[in-house]
Structure formats: C-alpha cells, structure tokens
C-alpha cells in the first residue's frame, strides 16, 4: 500500500472503521512515527471542528413554505383515478420482444400447418399430368366397336365432357 493510501487509514482509525488487525497495525505505526501522530491530530481536530458545528434551527418561515410546497404536491396524490379509456393494443413488435420463444414456436407451428394443408389440398403431379394412355385406350376401344371414327370421337367427347 502506498504511503498516501496507508495514511487514509488514520481517518478510518479515528472513525472506528478499521478491523481489529488493521487497527493494531495503525497503533503500532503511530507509536514509532511522529509524522503519523501529527497527521492524526490534524484529522481529529478537523473532525471535531465539523462535529462541533451547531444544529441549526429551521428559518421562521420554513414551515409555511413547506406546507405550501406540500400543497402543490397534494393534488397529484388526491386526484381520483382516471376513467377507463380505450387503449390501443400493444404493437406486435412489443409482444414479440416480450416473449420471443413463445412467438417463435407459434410461427414454426403455423408454418408446419400451412405445409400440411398445402400437401392435402393442392393437386399432386400425377393429377396434373393428362391421362393420355387411358384416353387413348378408351378411344381405341370405341372406334373398334363402332367402326365409325367420328361417332366414336363424339362418344369420347361426351364421356369426358370436352364438347362444350
């Protein structure tokens, strides 16, 4: 510890703020150091000077001014509670900031639901591709039976609703 910092111990010594071991070290040093004893006396004198300062009475008009000051503060405390008013809901950003984990779970769940619904509702690749082979087979069967390719085609149209 530097000499200056160790000298700080003298004020703590005067104020009774040292533990037993440090207090003993300070007392040992005070016994062998005249300069420390001189500083100690200065510290004690300064402390005593401030402690001896008298307690001061409040000025005569202080009480009136205090009551006036408190009266200014009074209406704030005495006001009735305000009537309930419509409050806009908090912003989504605020809600997300308050509970990010819960919101992340909700978003992930919603995304999964969208994927499942899309898989069920949207047509698969086999449904989009025209059933050329089935159409061709049916057409061949009709033409071979009727022997009339035009009437056979008309039947196919009716069958598949393509004539409109």
């Amino acid at each position: 510890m530097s000499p200056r910092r160790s000298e700080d111990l003298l004020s703590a010594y005067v104020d009774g703020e040292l533990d037993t071991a440090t207090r003993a070290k300070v007392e040992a040093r005070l016994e062998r150091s005249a300069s420390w004893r001189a500083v100690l006396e200065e510290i004690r004198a300064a402390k005593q000077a401030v402690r001896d300062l008298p307690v001061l009475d409040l000025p005569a008009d202080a009480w009136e001014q205090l009551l006036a000051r408190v009266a200014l503060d009074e209406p704030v405390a005495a006001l009735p509670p305000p009537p309930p008013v419509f409050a806009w809901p908090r912003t989504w950003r605020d809600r997300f900031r308050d509970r990010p984990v819960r919101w992340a779970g909700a978003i992930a769940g919603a995304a999964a639901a969208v994927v499942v619904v899309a898989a069920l509702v949207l047509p698969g690749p086999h449904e989009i591709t025209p059933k050329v082979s089935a159409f061709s087979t049916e057409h061949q069967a009709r033409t071979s039976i009727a022997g009339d390719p035009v009437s056979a085609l008309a039947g196919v149209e009716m069958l598949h609703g393509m004539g409109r």
Partner: protein
Amino acid sequence: MADGVPTWEEVARDHGAFLFSVAYRLAGNADDAQDLVQEALVRVRRGLERYEPGSLEGWLARIVTNVFLDEMRRRRRRPADALPDDPERVLPTTPGADEASQELSEEIQHALAEIPEDFRVPVVLCDVADQSYEQIAVALRIPVGTVRSRIHRGRRMLRAALTAEGAA
C-alpha cells in the same frame, strides 16, 4: 405514529433541524438548504410507506443527500442556474450561541464550503449526519475505499483551510 413509522408532519417537526443542518452543511447557504429540506420532506411524505423502522436520521440523511446531488447535477447541466457568489449571504444564527462561537462556526462553515463537493459531501455525511463508511458508499454509489480516501483528504483540506484562516 403507527407501527413505529412517523407521519411526515412528525418528521418535519422532530427532525427538521437535523435535516436543515445537514442540508446547510452540504449546500453552504440557508436559501438552498431550505429548498433542499422542502424537497426532502416531500420525498419523505411520498416514501414513508416504504420506510422500515430503523435509523430514521440515517434514512433522512440519505434522502437530503440525494436531493442535494440531484440539484448539483441539474445545475451542472444548466450552468445559468449556478449559485451567484454572494458575499452578503448571511449565515443563520445559532440560538444561544455567543458572538465568538458564532464567528468560529462561520469560519468552519466557510472552510467547509471551500472544499470541493466530492470531498465535502462524504465529510458532512460522516461528521454531521453520523453515517458509516458503508452507508456513505451506498448513498454516493462509490466503493468504501473511495469513501475512506475522500474523507481523509477532505479533512486535511479543511484543516489546511482553517489553519490558513487562523481558526484552529
């Protein structure tokens, strides 16, 4: 008084002089000290529900110190509000004090006011408000070691100023 908790009127009546003394030693003049006491008592009134019976004067000293520090910060932000250096400012008289002791008190007060705020405040809290180093550290939000150092340096400054004035 209910459950050991005084009303704010009782605090003002019974501890007003203590509050004013601490405020005066911190601020260095009666007008500012009176303003500090008023603001401190308003805060006492608002905060009495949270007061837990214990060292009432310690609690009051912390409140008036916080009011003082808030005011100092406000004035630093707005230098135009800084106190004028008024040589005609009169110290409050002490009831029952003779002329010599009044004069000595004024010299000590003057020397105390000359000490920079960083050192004056811990000295006042220790020697006027009887606060421990731990309590001062909490009130000023500085380490206990810093409190010890500032009190020591503050006292040495005070002693030097008093010696220069011939008061001690």
